[in-house]
């Protein structure tokens, strides 16, 4: 900064440029007061500057999308954490936990002596308090993510206004939290790693308006000032953290509207981590170097392309006259040239999807569905018997391919249309605005649509249960298979990790044979970090590990 000011005098004498520089050099007075708590931690050079969009919420009771989660997950520590290196669930705010034989009762033993940054203890009651806020229908606006607590006894009753506390969650003593579920769920500790299921201090109830913009947390960073919508959120290191303190002094979340603008700020040296504008992957990879593992930024290896825990798929309306025939669904899946989509639209950075589980969730080679590869001949053959091709090559199958406009899906859908027309299926595209598109999907007023699924929890269950269980809200395909339903409920009871995984692999194959959804591709990171990042890990769920990040 000092250099800049000296250069300024040498370089320009004009008053405009001079005051421009004064502002840029940060030597002018800070005009907005009230956002610095006692120090200048966020002015320090050891602060990481990170681009986000304006979050929906950073108060854990309503943290839901990627941007809010990005901020909130470094502030709050949940009971458990998922380790992406070992693919295991590990302790965080809970030191260890016990589970009963049928996976309906979990007892978490909390780390003793941890505090919120206002000094309040992180005890079992604070967890119960945090979880109850999620179920409470009398919040200023009720939480939109109560479904995370669906497995918990008493969660629905509380939301219905029939109970005033969460009966399934019990503070046995200060540091023992007992959770009772309505049905067995061996994966429950994975759910407990979700950034929304965290403790809150009493202050959250006393002043909820304040807590929305300046939550008081128990994690390695705390908020500096408050969240200023569409501008910034500043976090600083919390020095009384019970775990290993962070290496960086703070994080400056720059809230931007447009990824292209954010990228220009990155080029101007003002942002340390951002996404790469579409179509510029190869050029930027060349300039900044590819990361070795796809998830870690180090100087000279700054571009991330690691696979994500999310899938892009076509959902098929199984109640539709045409699409209810599994033969057509399987033939369509065979006809789609997934690699071509990835090479043409995404410069080869994504991974073709051959089943419902992204590779980072489960990379068992036997997961691939029988008809999820590209084989035009097999696709045509499959249709020949029931739907013979006429002299013009058409088979009399007409389908409508619906998608939301403006999300970059046009190119993908046009390739799919071309593929399907090769096997004699007539395709019409229907591009709808997002709101109208959701209406159409929800009302079952579509034949084939597109959707993406981002894992809430890194479990196999989370890809199957919400999307293909016949009674699930998100079963847009209206897929009904009693055997699959039963197998999924059975799998949830298996406490042994390996056995449970094997059960889910079987369900994956059962679903694959029916093809209620057609997997297209697994998402990948397309992000770039600056040279200031000495070491920076960005996991498969798109959460940055700020607590262990280091700056040069």
């Amino acid at each position: 900064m000092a250099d800049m000011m000296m250069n300024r005098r040498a370089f320009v004498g004009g008053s405009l440029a001079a005051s421009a520089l004064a502002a840029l050099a940060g030597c002018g007075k800070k005009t907005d007061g009230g956002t610095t708590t006692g120090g200048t931690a966020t002015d320090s050079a050891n602060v990481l500057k990170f681009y986000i969009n304006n979050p929906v919420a950073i108060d854990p009771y309503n943290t839901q999308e990627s941007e809010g989660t990005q901020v909130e997950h470094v502030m709050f520590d949940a009971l458990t954490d998922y380790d992406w290196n070992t693919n295991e669930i590990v302790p965080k705010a809970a030191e260890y936990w016990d589970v009963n034989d049928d996976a309906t009762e979990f007892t978490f033993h909390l780390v003793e002596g941890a505090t919120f940054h206002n000094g309040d203890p992180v005890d079992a009651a604070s967890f119960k308090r945090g979880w109850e806020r999620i179920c409470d229908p009398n919040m200023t606006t009720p939480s939109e993510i109560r479904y995370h607590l669906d497995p918990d006894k008493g969660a629905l009753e509380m939301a219905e206004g029939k109970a005033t506390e969460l009966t399934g969650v019990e503070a046995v003593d200060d540091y023992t939290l007992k959770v009772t579920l309505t049905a067995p769920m061996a994966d429950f500790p994975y759910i407990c790693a979700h950034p929304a299921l965290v403790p809150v201090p009493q202050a959250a109830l006393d002043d909820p308006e304040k807590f929305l913009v300046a939550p008081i947390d128990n994690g390695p960073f705390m908020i500096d000032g408050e969240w200023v919508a569409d501008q910034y959120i500043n976090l600083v290191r919390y020095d009384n953290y019970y775990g290993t303190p962070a290496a960086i002094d703070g994080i400056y979340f720059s809230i931007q509207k447009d990824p292209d603008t954010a990228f220009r700020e990155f080029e101007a040296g003002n942002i340390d981590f951002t996404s790469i504008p579409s179509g510029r992957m190869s050029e930027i990879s060349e300039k900044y170097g590819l990361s070795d593992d796809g998830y870690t930024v180090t100087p000279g290896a700054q571009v991330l392309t690691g696979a994500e825990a999310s899938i892009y798929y076509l959902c098929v309306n199984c109640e539709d006259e045409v699409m209810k025939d599994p033969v057509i669904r399987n033939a369509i899946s065979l006809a789609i040239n997934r690699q071509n989509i990835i090479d043409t639209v995404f410069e080869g950075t994504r991974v073709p999807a051959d089943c419902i589980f992204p590779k980072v969730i489960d990379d068992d080679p036997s997961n691939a569905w029988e008809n999820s590869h590209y084989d035009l001949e097999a696709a045509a053959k499959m249709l020949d018997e029931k739907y013979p091709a006429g002299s013009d090559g058409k088979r009399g199958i007409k389908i409508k391919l619906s998608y939301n406009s403006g999300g970059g899906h046009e190119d993908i859908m046009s390739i799919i249309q071309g593929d399907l027309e090769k096997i004699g299926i007539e395709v019409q595209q229907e591009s709808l605005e997002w709101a109208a598109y959701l209406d159409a999907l929800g009302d079952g007023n579509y034949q084939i649509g597109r959707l993406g699924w981002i894992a809430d929890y890194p479990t196999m269950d989370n890809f199957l249960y919400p999307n293909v269980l016949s009674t699930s809200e998100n079963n847009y395909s209206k897929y009904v298979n009693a055997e699959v339903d039963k197998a999924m409920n059975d799998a949830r009871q298996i406490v042994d990790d390996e056995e449970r995984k094997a059960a889910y692999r079987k369900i994956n194959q059962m679903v694959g044979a029916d093809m209620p959804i057609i997997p297209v591709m697994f998402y990948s990171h397309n992000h770039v970090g600056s040279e200031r990042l000495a070491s920076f890990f960005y996991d498969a769920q798109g959460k940055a590990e700020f607590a262990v990040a280091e700056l040069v």
Partner: protein
Amino acid sequence: MIKYIIKRIIQFIPVFLGVTLILFAMQNIVPGDPIKLIAGEKKLDPQTEINLRATYHLIETDENGNPILDENGNTIETPLWKRYISYITGLLHGDLGRSYQQNGKPVTAILGQKYPYTFRLALVAIVIESILGIGAGMISAIKRYSAWDVGVTLVTSTMVAMPAFWFGMLQQLFWGIFLKNVTNGAFYLPISGVGGPHAEFENWVYYILPALTLAAVSTAYTARIMRSQLLEVLNQDYIRTARAKGLSRRAVIWRHALKNALIPVVTYIGMDFGGMLAGAILTETVFNWPGVGFETYRAISQRDWPIVMGSVTVIVIVVMVINLLVDISYAFLDPRIRFDGSKGE
């Protein structure tokens, strides 16, 4: 004059009610359920959906806030007219409701945070537009067919043809990145508020690029209108008379021609100012300006009706007031125009 202003203000009321009523009715016509949209493709669980609808008074509730059910056990939707009445009642109490998408944050707080930025940016842009536009227009009219005139015409044609957001991006690339690299960080202009630990939109250097971008197209139009108006006025008899009486060319232009030529220009600038106060979506997006335009755009696409209604309410009032001010300014510019019904001199 006072009578005229009061008459105009009373006329505001039916216009305002008409506009808001039409917009309110659109909530039921436009596809997309605002509550379902909160969750996006990951659906809300049914009980949460009911609780949210009750919170936002979209379904009938009893005095405890619990939803009232019909004989089939379904919730009852609050009719549109009831919601419109509570919107108007709220408005009279200074309450614009709560946002569906932003954790129930009051709309007045959301707009209150955004409007100052929009207003200041619009003000800077209008000053640029007035000075540069009127100045360039005058020069090119007075020095007609000179190199100046050709230059102004060329520049204005280019500006009119260039999309504002693209012009903005070019400026960012030049002032923010190219200059910074060339001068080794010694001189550059900020791109989007990133720089210090806070977005520094309070500081005036952050206004330069967005205001230039926002003003670009209108400045060009202003210059062209100014040029043609001034030329027309300069050709009129009374100007020739004034010159013949021995007044200097300068005096004639400043004292006699300019005021008369300004009327359409002021109209244009006034309307433009009104438009800018409604927010500038593209400029705000490119420069990450925390203004009201992007907020409204986001609210429309997410069907966050309270915010849409709130910003439209403000926009309608602002536009009506600005129109009134423009009309009043005519009287100052052209003494023949009077509003009180009596004949001009």
